[in-house]
């Protein structure tokens, strides 16, 4: 059932120009950044050789590229998540899903999965960009993998938060604004947290946890944080939709 809903989500998403425009724009922005980093790297390469244990291409180009990709996805998420539930409500199709012999959990997970498949496509494009570097050298695949895992997890967090906010509103635009606001708060927390390792805000910042993946460190604390984040907002979404049936 979850897959059937995910399949429908993707079909509806790709039948609108939104998905294609987003894919194209995200790719354009990231390629630009990629090329800029590549350019800098080539310029400073002669000096890097003189250092003992110099940073490789993966560290100098791919890690910053993935860091930027997370911010680009943060901006793109509200546009994608806003319609998930709010639009179903607006088009009165929510009744159709609720009347079907499936549970609210199926609906929420299906929608989440559909969006994650779309995000996986975006991430695959970023990976393709990174792999193109193989033409001129070798890559640190371990670091690349940790970056991919990090980007996947942080986008799952964006998606679950966006899905929940979409459950709260009956208008896609409201949901989009709300999601953008909430995600920006998480970004601001990151800036406010600074570099003080002991601060509590740092523990709540999505990007600080992502930073570790960026450096190639896969920490169980980060993994737990991301999983809990996703879980909490998915459970809240299911509860919210169930509550609506009870309260009317």
């Amino acid at each position, binding site marked *: 059932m979850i897959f059937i809903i995910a399949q*429908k989500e993707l*079909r*509806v998403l790709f*039948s609108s120009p939104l998905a294609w425009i987003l894919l194209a724009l995200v790719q354009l922005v990231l390629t630009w950044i990629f090329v800029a980093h590549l350019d800098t790297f080539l310029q400073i390469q002669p000096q890097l050789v003189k250092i003992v244990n110099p940073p490789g291409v993966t560290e100098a180009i791919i890690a910053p590229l993935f860091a930027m990709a997370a911010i680009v996805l943060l901006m793109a998420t509200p546009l994608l998540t806003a319609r998930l539930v709010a639009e179903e409500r607006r*088009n009165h*199709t929510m009744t159709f899903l609720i*009347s*079907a*012999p499936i549970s609210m959990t199926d609906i929420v997970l299906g929608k989440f999965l559909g969006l994650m498949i779309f995000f996986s496509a975006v991430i695959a494009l970023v990976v393709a960009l990174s792999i193109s570097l193989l033409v001129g050298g070798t890559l640190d695949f371990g670091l690349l993998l940790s970056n991919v895992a990090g980007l996947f997890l942080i986008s799952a967090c964006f998606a679950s938060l966006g899905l929940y906010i979409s459950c709260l509103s009956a208008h896609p635009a409201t949901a989009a604004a709300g999601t953008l606001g909430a995600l920006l708060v998480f970004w601001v927390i990151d800036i406010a947290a600074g570099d003080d390792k002991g601060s509590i805000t740092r523990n709540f910042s999505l990007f600080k946890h992502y930073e570790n993946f960026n450096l190639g460190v896969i920490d169980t604390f980060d993994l737990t944080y991301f999983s809990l984040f996703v879980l909490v907002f998915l459970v809240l979404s299911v509860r919210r939709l169930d509550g609506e*049936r009870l309260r009317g």
Partner: protein
Amino acid sequence: MTEQSASLTLSACGLCRNFGTRAAVHEINLELKRGEVLGLLGPNGAGKTTLMRMLTGNLAPSAGSIEICGIDLLDKPREAKARIGYLPEIPPLYRELTVDEYLQFAAKLHRVNNEKIHFTVNKAVQRCGLNDTGKRLIGSLSKGYQQRAGIAQAIIHDPDIIILDEPTAGLDPNQMREIRTLIRELGTEHSVIFSTHILAEVESMCDRVQILCEGRTVFSDSVGGPKQNDLSLEEVFVRFTVDREDSESF
């Protein structure tokens, strides 16, 4: 007793629903046998839609129980919902999908076997007269065809009970006639509940009629019932709904 309950497809008992302090539906009992068509009548705001939303599991009742073919809707929603087809007042359509895509999705959601999907979609398409629209986007269809797609979605899994909320509202006279013929046809095999404001529709299509007013059942009888007393359905409707409203306003 068992024989009687076996032919009952739907039985709702003491249904209540409050929105805040307002009771939208109060103590409604409803029974439906296989092959029976029940017409729900009532002025706007009588609680018809609320009642239908409860019967289809879209809204939890404040009190009362609903049994679909002997399965409790609140205890086993999944099994019970599989036996209901529901067309809300506004047909729940995805404008971005084609009719075929939409009906396939509906069939899959209702757990129709993969091998049978093609067959069931074709059957629903033919029954609802959607033959030439399969590849068209739902958003580009006329209101009448959208309504048909909505009905097709409700009957695709061959449910025991079909619940239609004002299926003929906003259609032209020809389309109305076609939809009525379709409902009559459906009524031979399935149990059908539909709500409407057109009394002639009820007289021509229903076996039984139930009139709601202010969330209560004010009249429930077979369609032939009023005629035996030389009353038209309109007179009955006016007597039970207008008089009631008047008596309460004084």
